[in-house]
């Protein structure tokens, strides 16, 4: 399997990647996710976008919902989710490195 094929997050959208990054250091519920993403990425996720991403990631088996705390469901990254995030970040790093190198070579 190529690195590109391993990167299941390639087509999942930016919100899904941001949610996975946020969940990488521990379980969070919706409100905490929105606050965390705003803090580390400067992106304000709308609640509709957030639940779209959570639903998609859950169906892909990349996150799982924990028992509800009152009406809030905390979510946790799964082992396949962590692997997918790692593969996606590696892919981004390769693209980023290539981009920086080419900018240097081009003298732009």
């Amino acid at each position: 399997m190529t690195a590109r094929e391993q990167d299941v997050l390639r087509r999942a959208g930016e919100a899904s990647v941001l949610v996975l990054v946020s969940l990488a250091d521990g379980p969070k519920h919706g409100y905490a996710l929105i606050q965390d993403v705003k803090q580390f990425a400067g992106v304000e996720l709308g609640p509709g976008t957030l639940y779209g991403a959570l639903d998609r990631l859950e169906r892909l088996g990349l996150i799982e919902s924990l028992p509800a705390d009152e009406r809030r469901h905390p979510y946790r990254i799964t082992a396949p989710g962590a692997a997918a995030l790692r593969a996606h970040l590696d892919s981004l790093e390769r693209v980023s490195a290539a981009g920086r190198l080419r900018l240097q070579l081009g003298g732009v």
Partner: protein
Amino acid sequence: MSAPEAREGRMVDAALRCYPARWRRRHADEAAELAALLIADGTPAASIAWSYLAGAAREWLAPRPGRSLSTVAAALLAAACLLGFSAALVAESAPARAAGTTQPPSGPVPPKIKPMPPSAGSSSPHQFTPCRPVLPRQVTGAFPAAGYSQLSIQGTAHARSC
């Protein structure tokens, strides 16, 4: 709960009702809870409702295991066809209504000509005829087939004959 808070809550609830039942069963409670937290945080309820509406639209359009891409495409195509058909019907009926108008919008305008007594006009080359509305005829060529223009032309001609 104050009236504005109740209105905001209703707005968000209405947006959440737009989601498919499967999604509502799974997320509706926590989504409502999140909306309440965001509103308390100062986020406008309208923007939250809008975000949920957009999410609901994406949820309906996203292909699911039981709902193939072709099903979604067929549903979109059918909706587009219905929309196009309705638009065509409206476009067709609008000129037809305009051409079919035989009276001005405010109702018939009676000619302001005083009728002459029959005896006074007996030797005149113009015979007396009581003024009455004339049935509209289709005017071809010089004027557009708009009902109001036709009536003006006929009204003028009729007034002269009286």
